[in-house]
């Protein structure tokens, strides 16, 4: 474990060096990111200025849930972005060979190799939304609120990451699966709003099938109301754990099916 943490530091340092290697690209990327995030904030402002309340949810509560949804999404984006490349390129081109000939866990190796600074833009939005909404809400605050928040964020992140691992691993059989990951990822938009605004089918889908509701809505409502901790937080922990175990299983089965590419 210590070894992997040490390795991760080295990988991140190397990633940053690689980033500096292309200065123009880096600068343009950073500017683009600021513009994109600014647009998103303006867009949210427009939507919520038109709809002051959503099915009994007041404006600040909706913002809090939205901001909360960005926490796991940002962490996942920051650390595991390279999984996209598994589905789009790494397996199809046989580049996965390299990971299999190294004495570290393949999943860890793929994930650690990249570090996505773009996520800092989302982090900014996330912090702004939470900083704006929290003071206006009467959130019950206890000594355990912050530790709980951190723990639940980790498991919510696991939900994102595990789904990404599973859909990427499909390419071990199909050679390419980037679009499947993309499709799944799009459904996470449902998780950004209070689930009560959707019909029963969508609610069931994002609660029990692709449990994005546990990445934001359920844990966020617990922090808002202090009610139902067992379901709201427990659900996140269970969903994160189960999906992660499943993801590891699918990944390992995938390794055996890997066919490389001709050379």
């Amino acid at each position, binding site marked *: 474990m210590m070894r992997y943490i040490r390795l991760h530091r*080295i990988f991140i340092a190397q990633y940053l060096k690689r980033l500096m*290697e292309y200065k123009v690209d880096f600068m343009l990327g950073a500017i683009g990111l600021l513009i994109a995030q600014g647009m998103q904030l303006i867009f949210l402002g427009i939507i919520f200025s038109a709809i002051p309340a959503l099915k009994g949810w007041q404006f600040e509560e909706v913002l809090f849930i939205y901001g909360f949804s960005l926490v796991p999404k940002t962490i996942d984006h920051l650390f595991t972005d390279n999984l996209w490349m598994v589905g789009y390129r790494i397996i199809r081109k046989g580049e996965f*060979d390299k990971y*299999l000939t190294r*004495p570290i866990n393949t999943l860890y190796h793929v994930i650690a190799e990249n570090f996505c600074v773009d996520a800092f833009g989302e982090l900014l939005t996330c912090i702004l939304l939470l900083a704006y909404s929290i003071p206006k809400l009467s959130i019950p605050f206890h000594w355990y609120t912050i530790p709980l928040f951190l723990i639940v964020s980790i498991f919510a992140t696991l939900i994102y990451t595990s789904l990404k691992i599973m859909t990427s691993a499909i390419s071990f059989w199909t050679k390419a699966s980037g679009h499947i990951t993309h499709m799944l990822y799009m459904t996470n938009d449902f998780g950004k709003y209070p689930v009560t605004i959707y019909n029963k089918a969508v609610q069931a889908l994002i609660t029990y099938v692709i449990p994005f509701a546990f990445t934001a809505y359920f844990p966020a409502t617990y922090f808002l109301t202090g009610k139902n901790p067992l379901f709201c937080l427990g659900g996140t922990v269970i969903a994160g754990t189960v999906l992660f175990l499943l993801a590891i299983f699918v990944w390992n089965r995938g390794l*055996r099916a*890997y066919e*490389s590419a001709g*050379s």
Partner: protein
Amino acid sequence: MEAMIYAENLRKEFKKIIKEPGLKGAAKALFKPNKEIVTAVDDISFEVPAGEILGFIGPNGAGKSTVIKMLTGILTPTSGFCRINGKIPQEDRKNYVREIGVVFGQRTQLWWDLALRETYSVLKEIYQVPEEQFKKRMTFLNEVLELDSFITSPVRTLSLGQRMRADIAAALLHSPKVLFLDEPTIGLDVVVKENIRSAIRKINEEEGTTVILTTHDLADIELLCERIVMIDKGRKVFDGGLSELRHNFGDVRTLRFELVNGPDFKLLDYRRRFKLTDDDVSAERDGSSVTVRFDTAKVSVEEMISYTLSTVHVKDLNIKDVEIEEIIKKLYRREVSL
């Protein structure tokens, strides 16, 4: 003691979807795939004792890379198994790969945007090479592979020859017991090829590293390998020493000489003189130099020389053993079978 590399009845099948040509064919394959099983490697068994350099050869598409990928743990065999250094790669991957080095000539395993030096420092962490040993190792690799002049350059700026040396050094950093080289000399000039060959020889001699090497350059085989395994269409067609291959093939020699007067060539008619067929003898002229290949089972060296000298004026003459290249060319064309 068991061999360092032991492979038993290795077999690898791939499912392949047969597509008819064109967009229509592609669409048809999407909805009604016509699957076919292709056997890339068919029942291959062999052993390599510790410290040996084995040449692994065969025409394109014979299944060489597939075998190497099974041996290195990248692919899982459909049936059969291999055990290397006492471990089954597919069962104990992480521990197994710690003691092997792998180079795929066609594909780099270095980080494209990192300076070479940085790549090695990352690999040092991945393989947990202690600092002291790492320094010593880098000095040694610098010396045999001459990395110094480009060690600070990003990998993407390296020439093919530099990249290949860098890749080989990367595979040797953790002092592996077994080194797998899949076409390590592909596309390189003679000087770099020689540098790489001498590095392989040195590693093998000084550290007793077992090496498996695939190549299309038969000079690699002649200069490095005591033994070869040849495969074709996924099957093993030959396994033995170079001398055995020469012997099995028939004792073919090459006679080379310079004519005083080029056009005299037409005076020489080996076929009629010794009643031979085209398979037994061949003569080619390039300007004033002539190359004659002949089978000593049919006609002796002495007879050949005396006939040649008595028929034409010769400036210079030498006779050589059969080149392995000739044998393999013929094998590839399936003109002989072993």
